[in-house]
Structure formats: structure tokens, C-alpha cells
């Protein structure tokens, strides 16, 4: 990243923090029109620095080597597939996974924010799933908060020398789960319950999302691990290029 680009991101980050102070915290797809306007804007602005960083990071990755495009496309495609699959869960309702874990492990969280927002826009416009007004909030939970957790967990597991497939599984599964936790908090901030405020409200929303999402998070972890095994067998050279594998 050049000096200029760094400054740009820093500037956007400062603006976003300034904007983000009042809803000072951190939902999966919140439905269209379900968040008050100010919250929509605040979440959108909070997402901006990540998107900008992601855009520059993708450009840099591709400029360095066009060959990483294959893996980037695959990470994006994985999100497309996984987030289109609605899966029945133990609570008797359906939900879908995020699929952002793979990209976060391969490229880091910033890059995934761009891949994630593409899917969110697709679903918001064509499927009325999620929404344009809530795009900012959804981007923040699915394409930023989740991947950041995945990335941190993955790095942590590596440091602690956990078996590396296990760490991929853990990182992807918990990242998915965290996305829904953030969704709950986002909804709770906008709709604090009368008795008990934001916390009570968070607990309420969590009780809707979390039990449904736990089995799905496990599925996401399993599938991400499967794809990683596959990539390791066939794409050793590309993985080395993007710095996923130190030595092959």
C-alpha cells in the first residue's frame, strides 16, 4: 500500500469513528426498512473504511500477481453458494450461512468485505432479502465483523499450534456465529426493550438467531475445511503466492 492510500484509509476511518460514536457498538440480514434511518447511515459509514481498504488490498494483490485472481474468484464464489443455501435447523426455522470464512482465512478480512457486499447487493436487489437501506448494517455484520473474528481466531490457533484443519474449522464456524451475534446487537440497539434496555433486547434477538445458527455454523466450518483441503491438494502454488502457506 502506498503512503497516499494509507492516509486515505486513515482519513476515512477517522470520519467513520466520529460518525460511529453515538451508536457505539456493533445484525445478519436485517430486513428492508427495519432499521431507523440514522442507524442505516451510521452502519454504512462504519463499513466504509473496511471497504476502501478491501478495494485497495484487492488491487494490490492482483497487481502483484494476476494468478491470485483464481483464488479470489473462488472465495467469492464460495460466499455466493453458501449464502444461497437455506438450511433447516433444530429450532424449526431456516437460516443460511455466510461463507465468508474461506475468504477471510485466505486473504484477510478487508478483502472479504468487498466480496461480501457483492452478494448482499445481489440479494437485496433481486431477492428482497436483506435490503438496500440496511445494506450498511448487513455489510458490517456479515462481511466485516464475522470475517475479522475468523481471521483473528485463525491466527491465534496458528500461534498456539492447533492442528491446522481444526483451526480452519473453528475460525469459520465461530466467525459465522459471531455474524449473527452482531446482527442481534444491531437490532437491539435500534429496538431496546422497555424493561431492561439494550441488553435485554440483545438477549431476546440472540435467542431467536443463536440456536438456529449453531448447527449451521458447524456446517459452514465443515464445508470451509473441505474446500481448504481441496485447495491445498491442487493449488499449492497459488496458496504460496498469497502468503497462506509459508513453505510448500
Amino acid at each position, binding site marked *: 500500500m502506498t503512503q497516499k492510500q494509507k492516509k486515505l484509509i486513515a482519513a476515512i476511518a477517522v470520519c467513520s469513528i466520529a460518525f460511529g460514536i453515538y451508536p457505539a457498538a456493533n445484525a445478519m440480514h436485517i430486513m428492508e426498512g427495519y432499521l431507523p434511518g440514522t442507524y442505516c447511515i451510521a452502519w454504512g459509514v462504519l463499513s466504509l473504511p473496511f471497504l476502501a481498504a478491501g478495494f485497495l488490498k484487492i488491487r494490490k494483490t492482483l497487481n502483484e500477481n494476476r494468478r491470485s485472481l*483464481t483464488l479470489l474468484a473462488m472465495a*467469492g464464489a464460495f*460466499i455466493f453458494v453458501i449464502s*444461497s443455501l437455506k438450511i433447516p435447523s433444530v429450532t424449526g426455522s431456516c437460516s443460511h450461512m455466510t461463507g465468508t470464512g474461506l475468504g477471510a482465512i485466505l486473504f484477510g478480512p478487508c478483502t472479504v468485505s468487498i466480496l461480501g457486499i457483492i452478494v448482499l447487493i445481489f440479494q437485496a436487489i433481486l*431477492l428482497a432479502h436483506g435490503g438496500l437501506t440496511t445494506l450498511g448494517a448487513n455489510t458490517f455484520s456479515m462481511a466485516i465483523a464475522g470475517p475479522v473474528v475468523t481471521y483473528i481466531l485463525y491466527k491465534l490457533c496458528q500461534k498456539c499450534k492447533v492442528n491446522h484443519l481444526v483451526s480452519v474449522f473453528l475460525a469459520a464456524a465461530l466467525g459465522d456465529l459471531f455474524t449473527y451475534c452482531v446482527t442481534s446487537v444491531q437490532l437491539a440497539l435500534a429496538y431496546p426493550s422497555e424493561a431492561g434496555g439494550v441488553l435485554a433486547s440483545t438477549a431476546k434477538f440472540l435467542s*431467536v*438467531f443463536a440456536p438456529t445458527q449453531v*448447527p449451521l455454523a*458447524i456446517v459452514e466450518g465443515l464445508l470451509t475445511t473441505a474446500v481448504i483441503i481441496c485447495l491445498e491438494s491442487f493449488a499449492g502454488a497459488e496458496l504460496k503466492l498469497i502468503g497462506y502457506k509459508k513453505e510448500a
Partner: protein
Amino acid sequence: MEKKNKKMIAALIIASILIAIIPLFALKGAEFGGSDDAGSVMVEEIQGEYTPWFTPVLETLLNGELPGEVESLIFCVQTGIGVGILAFCIGRMYERKKLSGEDEAL
């Protein structure tokens, strides 16, 4: 691909399918609506009556909700695009490994 890895992938995929299918049989007669919708029900519970202040662009254009069949079509298109790209890339890598070596640029 090593034999061990093949078995591993098969096991992972079977486990995923089982987790997805079992609730269907375990909870016979459950509705299996979306959890996003459950979220909006919760909003109404906390807030009382709630009218979304913005309708999705598509619903405004169509003057109503997207028909269920068409919705599943678009979901399938989304899956299709994803699977297409994934399969294409893995296919190319598979052949590359078979024919020459991994160092060849794709």
C-alpha cells in the same frame, strides 16, 4: 489427492448433509420459516406494531411480493453462479496437476 484427504472430504460433506437433513425428520410438522422473519416478529413484540419505512425496490416495481417460484429461481441462479465458478477453477487446477505441475500459471 491423497487417499486420506479424499476420505476426509467425503466425511465432512456427509456430516454437513446430515446436520442439514436431520432437523427435517426430527421436527416433523415444524414450519421452517426464515429466521430473518423471526427477527421482524421479535421487533414487533418489543416495539408494538411496526411498519417498515422502506419497501424493497423490487417489490415497489412489481407492486407486490416476488412470487415464491421466481424467488427460488433467483436463489438457484445465485447458487449456480457460485458453483460454476468453483467447479471451473477446481477443474482447471485438477487437470493442471495431472498434466504438468503446480507451478504452471493458470
